């Protein structure tokens, strides 16, 4: 007999310690024992990622540990998400995230994606070096409420403006909150290109988007 509290604690522990095999095992225990997957996500995975986020912000752990924790979370999510009832899944905020065209630096984007996933968003990761049209079509297809884009390089900052312009042209602008990030960006730049907000890190991004919705 699987104990619910122990299983959720196991999931949390697996995420915090970055043990993907363990998180998958506990996720399978969740399914087999009839624990609601959403409870496991909230009470295990998200709880674990929150601990990871806090420790990272406090410089108690660093990128390698965060990335392994994210892997552990995604491993369990792969098991749990197909079992979430459709109506519950539909309540999640749809978000599109990508690195803009001309840039392939995606480590920051991946951390941001992880934190939004942990915060309960349904994140559509369209990868790196993404043309404006792909942001538009993915936003349209998924009824996105949030578009997040990043770049690490100066020359590709213009691709952010091109993406905002494309969302405007397609009539999607009023439906989405647009957040940008990456070393060369700033709130001034966000204002200049018509984005809604800028964040300096993943936790800042989650807090700002949540407040804006």
């Amino acid at each position: 007999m699987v104990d619910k509290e122990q299983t959720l604690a196991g999931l949390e522990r697996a995420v915090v310690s970055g043990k993907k095999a363990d998180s998958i095992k506990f996720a399978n225990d969740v399914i087999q024992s009839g624990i609601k997957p959403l409870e496991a996500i909230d009470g295990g995975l998200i709880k674990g990622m929150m601990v990871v986020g806090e420790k990272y912000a406090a410089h108690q752990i660093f990128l390698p540990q965060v990335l392994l924790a994210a892997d552990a979370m995604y491993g369990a999510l792969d098991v749990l998400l197909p079992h979430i009832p459709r109506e519950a899944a539909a309540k999640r905020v749809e978000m599109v995230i990508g690195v803009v065209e001309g840039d392939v630096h995606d480590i920051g984007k991946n951390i941001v994606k992880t934190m939004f996933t942990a915060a309960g968003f349904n994140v559509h990761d369209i990868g790196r070096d993404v043309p404006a049209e792909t942001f538009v079509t993915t936003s349209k297809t998924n009824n996105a409420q949030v578009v997040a884009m990043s770049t690490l390089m100066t020359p590709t900052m213009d691709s952010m403006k091109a993406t905002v312009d494309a969302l405007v042209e397609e009539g999607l602008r009023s439906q989405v909150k647009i957040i940008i990030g990456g070393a060369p960006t700033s709130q001034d730049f966000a204002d200049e290109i018509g984005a809604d907000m800028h964040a300096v890190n993943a936790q800042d991004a989650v807090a700002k988007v949540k407040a804006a919705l």
Partner: protein
Amino acid sequence: MADKMNHIERAMAALQNQPVDRLPCYPIACGVQRKLLNNGAGITYHEWATDPKKFADAFIAGQRYFDHDFAIGLMDLSVMAGDLGAHVRMDEQNTPFVDDPVIKNIEDYEKLQVPNIKDPKTRSHVLVEGTRQFVQELGKEVITAGFIEGPLLVLTQARGAEFVFKDMYDNESSRAAVHKALATITEFDKELVKAFGREAKPAGLVWDYLWGSYSCLGDTEYEEFEGQHKYAGCLNELTAKEGMAFCVHNCADLPHLDTQVKAFKPAIYSMAYYPLIPGSPSAKEVIAKGYSDNCLMAGNIDPQGYVRWSPEKMQKVTMNLCNEVTTALKAKGLGGRYCIASGCEVPPSVATKLENIKMCVDTTKQYGTFA
């Protein structure tokens, strides 16, 4: 105000903590200086980053136009990964970058081999030869330096940073594979150090030790995968042994200053400032905390300013930084131990305003004095 020292006198005085006529200045203008070639029409980044003569010509043209105190031969951060076999994408006017890593799985870490950098087809050769050419032309006017990527930076370019970071701690065999690759890249770096020291002969060599950042790695992780007692330590020693001043550039946020300044003991350390990131040290904090006591610190104008600001704003920012720095240096009883510079490379974008680079240099000449 007219300069009372020449560039080398000023830089040497600053390095030795002697009085200077004004603060030294070097906006890290490298790729952007290609815009001065071809009678001002510029050349593509690809042309600049693959032809030693054009690479050198841009630094020479930049020196004539801007009148810097240093010349530092940064090309881009995909030179060594490209020579290890990663595919480098070269857009016309964008900094080249790796778009297809050479290490795709754990086994590939062990397959890395030190390339033959004498081969003219390698960009390492272009870098060393290009550096040699501008050193020959400018070496008697300014302090020149080559620019080289540290082993962990090269590995993250060759594999992808996210994979490297995970492989460091995923399991013992992946961790061992990361170390094996770092050892190979360290040998590659040693070959390059010797080539710089024996062929190009710059006064200094600037190491990019980007991952020494508390946003990325802690002290323990950094020590294990690059640190003073690991790969970086022997490379830093070799740099001095080959007759070049050992220098470091790290434009990451929250740099490991105790390790990279106090333990590594570079002659020059250049860094960025991120006002939005809690804990990012400003110029005055860096000086107050003693990092300028034994090192010429350099920074920290926002590189974006060279693209986006008006010349008037660049002047104001540079004036403020000069004032902040001279006040802090005086309080510590130091000479010219801070170089007014950009926090990272001046963006090599076509949109970068050359007048802002000139404004930064000219403003430092006027307001970087200790009067």
